[in-house]
């Protein structure tokens, strides 16, 4: 059966991303100019992101309900599209510096983005699985993209082994859910017997599979190693894109399947508390900036899971009230993606060839050498810490609000404690940049040049962080639409 035109419209962003990825691979033998591929990927990422508006205009279920184009998927398409676009901008100079092939990198990046897009709009579990695999397999390769670096290969290997294990859980979960409900369509599961043990077990396995993707404790052990070893622009992608997509799927499952919302409150409560503490306490002792940011991204997954606990709690009580909790997740993911992209881009650029300068010592006295870069990195760190006037502040505020709204005061207090622990290590970086005298070799470092593409990334993330920190209204109004999911 040939798909209807409207079905095509609803997956147009994915098609464009994939199309440009294939194009990049096909042209690779013929085009010598490496920067052509940057341009190609740039256009592809942008076109796909723009096409998501087209998909949104033709909202509704596509391919007999396999995917769902709605405000929710629009938001996430914009998010992962913007992430891809910014990573393309940041990656060009990096690939140049590290003498890595361009075309494959961008192709994989676009494939991964398409996979994330599928995850965000999937309404059916096997479709979601395909999206997950698309983004994961591309990610495994991207993590090992610096073939001659041991760390990068180790990172890819670890990510691949643990990732496949988690994917197996996810798949097995789908099988069990199908066994108990007789369908893999999320919207049809509403009619299922909610007390079925098989269904609960299946959902638990899905949760584990996705928990791995979002780096929730105790499924987080891969994160620091993979983040550290992967090329830094790829790390930026990992921390922003796949995480957002996996959270999107998780949110869609737990919003659509009533059985999923009723029994998972405590699971999310414990996951959230554990993830926050593991992430923050782990970050306290890091001296490598990439590892520090990796642990911080675990901690932030924990904060987002707090909002999930609120979502599941609200779903039991009064599902109409759950909207602000969804909004909290979405807004947080947006603010978080902006900040992490900016921070990793700076880290990537300051790392120098071969990514040598990643230790905190190398950042000593940065404010004297490169005041603007230091100021930007400080802003990102303050946003991660959740201080006004940054987007992270509102993100944290909305999560707190969702938690307190759901009477999860103790979880909110745990989150507050974690924010203070977090403050210590974010401040430590700022302290090193502004208040420590550089060591002899750090002082000898020449100021690192920031090419146009990288500066553009910093400008966009910087302005976005402040803009959403001062005036979050447009985003909030959009994600608080009553028909966020499903229409």
């Amino acid at each position, binding site marked *: 059966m040939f798909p209807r035109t409207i079905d095509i419209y609803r997956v147009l962003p994915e098609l464009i991303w994939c199309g440009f990825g294939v194009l990049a691979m096909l042209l690779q033998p013929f085009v010598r100019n490496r920067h052509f591929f940057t341009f190609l990927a740039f256009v592809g990422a942008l076109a796909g992101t723009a096409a998501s508006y087209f998909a949104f205009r033709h909202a509704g279920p596509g391919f007999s309900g396999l995917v769902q184009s709605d405000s929710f998927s629009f938001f996430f398409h914009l998010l992962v599209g913007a992430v891809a676009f910014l990573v393309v901008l940041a990656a060009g100079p990096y690939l140049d510096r590290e003498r890595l092939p361009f075309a494959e990198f961008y192709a994989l990046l676009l494939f991964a983005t398409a996979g994330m897009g599928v995850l965000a709009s999937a309404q059916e579990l096997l479709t979601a699985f395909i999206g997950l695999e698309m983004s994961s397999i591309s990610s495994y390769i991207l993590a090992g993209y610096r073939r001659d670096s041991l760390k990068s290969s180790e990172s890819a290997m670890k990510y691949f082994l643990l990732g496949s294990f988690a994917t197996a859980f996810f798949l097995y979960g789908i099988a069990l859910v199908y066994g108990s409900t007789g369908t893999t369509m999320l919207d049809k599961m509403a009619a299922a017997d909610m007390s079925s043990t098989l269904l609960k077990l299946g959902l638990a396995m899905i949760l584990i599979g996705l928990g791995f993707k979002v780096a929730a404790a105790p499924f987080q052990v891969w994160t620091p190693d993979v983040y550290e070893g992967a090329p830094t622009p790829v790390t930026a992608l990992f921390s922003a894109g796949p995480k957002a997509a996996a959270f999107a799927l998780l949110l869609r499952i737990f919003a659509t399947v009533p059985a999923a919302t009723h029994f998972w409150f405590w699971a999310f409560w414990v996951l959230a508390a554990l993830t926050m503490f593991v992430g923050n306490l782990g970050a306290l002792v890091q001296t490598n900036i990439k590892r520090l940011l990796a642990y911080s991204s675990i901690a932030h997954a924990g904060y987002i899971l707090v909002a999930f606990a609120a979502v599941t709690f609200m779903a039991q009580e009064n599902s109409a009230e759950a909207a*602000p909790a969804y*909004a909290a997740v979405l807004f947080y993911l947006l603010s978080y993606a902006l900040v992490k992209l900016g921070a990793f881009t700076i880290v990537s650029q300051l790392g120098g060839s071969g990514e040598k300068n990643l230790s905190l010592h190398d950042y000593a006295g940065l404010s004297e050498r490169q005041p603007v870069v230091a100021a930007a990195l400080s802003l990102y760190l*303050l946003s991660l810490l959740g*201080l*006004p*006037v940054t987007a992270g*502040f509102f993100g944290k*505020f909305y999560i*707190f*609000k969702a938690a*307190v*709204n759901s009477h999860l*005061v103790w979880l*909110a*207090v745990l989150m*507050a404690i974690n*924010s*203070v622990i977090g*403050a*210590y290590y974010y*401040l*430590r970086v700022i*302290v090193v940049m*502004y*208040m*420590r005298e550089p060591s002899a070799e750090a002082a000898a470092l020449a100021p690192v040049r920031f090419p146009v593409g990288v500066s553009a990334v910093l400008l966009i993330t910087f302005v976005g962080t402040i803009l959403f920190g001062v005036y*979050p*209204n447009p985003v*909030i*109004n959009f994600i*608080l639409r009553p028909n966020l999911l499903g229409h």
Partner: protein
Amino acid sequence: MLPGGHLLSVLIFFPAVGALALLMLRGDDHKYIRLIAMVVSAAEFLFSLLMLPRVPIGTAGYHLEEFAKWINQPPINYHLGVDGISLFLVLLTTFLTPISVLASWNSIAHRVKEFFVMLFMLEVGVVGVFLSLDLFLFFLFWEVMLIPMAFLIGIWGHERRVYAAVKFVLYTMAGSILMLVGIIWLYNSTGTFDLPTIQQMLANGTMVLAPRTEMLLFLAFFLAFAIKVPLFPLHTWLPDAHVEAPTAGSVMLAGVLLKLGTYGMIRFCLPLFPEASHRAARWVAVLAIIGIIYGALVAMVQPNLKKLVAYSSVSHLGFVVLGIFAFHNISMQGAVYQMLAHGVSTGALFLLVGMLYDRRHTFEISEYGGLSTPMPKLAAFFLFTALSSLGLPMLNGFVGEFLVLLGTYQRHWQWASWAAVGVILSACYLLWSYQRVFFGEITREKNRTLPDATAREKWILGVVAVVTLWMGIGSPFITRRTAAATQTVIDQVEPQRPYEAATPPGAAPEVKGDSANTAKAVPIERLGIR
């Protein structure tokens, strides 16, 4: 001319504009940067004086209000307003900022531009906190001022500056993030972040909190404020922060930032959670009294002059907290007055200590001695300031302490008796340290040739001394304007107890002429001041 309707916004954001202007400048033209900083901060002070005639005497409620919708969901508004209490605290802030700029004229030599930018951002945060009438906005400014202060300590401070800066931030954040949870919780019960609206809901009984909830909320707010004050035993960040901060940082920290805590108690803890305040009052008072005596005793044995002044702050702020939690209008007024007086005189003490440091680069008292011979003028200023700080009548410290003790005595004579010990002790440590630093033989040869106060220093100290003296003599100028606001707080915290019952016998107030100009005025006899 200034649009009168937006005076408060101008006050908040003018320093930010100044900071932006400074950022545009080249970093190496120090003279020019200092000049602009001075002009901006002085202009800000003049702007703030414009508030004075617009806050009528004896009228409760907020003035010069500004209201604009900001965030739709949840409804957060940009709501500003000023009353008798915040009026003078803003004036104190805008007064101490140019003083701080002058004080850092020569002592800040590297990263000059960034220094003044941070100072101005700090001013933005502090003025914003005092003028916000929306809980969310309040919290936002509360957090905004954190980072500039940490930078002031951490970049331009002394040896252990990084430790002190981080400690300062972590302590403050620990309290404030819980306050955020409290603010959101309160929003859940009221549906608004707007302070006047919540107060109205409390007054007409549309919002009733369960006792346990009220207590938890009270504690969430109180902890944040108590850390800031700082109340014993949460004070340990203060000596570190003070000793390590540059002079201007210490002046702003002691002069203004500590008051944010006590201001928060007056503005939020008491009016919003009256029952919980009553239940907690006894324990708070005990902590305040411990703070008064403990701070004074520790100050007495300090070998470090700056630490001595820092601990004297712990002691003095104990009086403020005691005055607030005695729930008496006189003591509340005393508390407000003490906040202002402490801001001026302790600020001046830090300036003086900073001047000594500029000359000898040490805070150790044992390094000094007999300084009045080489520097008689500085010695005279120091004595004057020390006397005002220990509460000599005619100077500003006396008014605050006396009113606090008077008001507290009417309610709980035991509290007042214990607190009075602190007055004696403050005389001990200040005079004793003065004696060791300025009197006696010169023990260090280096000290023999120290230069006396320069013209710039004389100007700074002279201005502060005039204000000190004026506050000591002309105190009614201030108390008349704060009276209505403090009485409102008292009414909110004790709606069941009419004020007359607490009026001391024989304290029939004498009505001043200017009570006539207020239509909806709080009767001045209820204000309990003359």
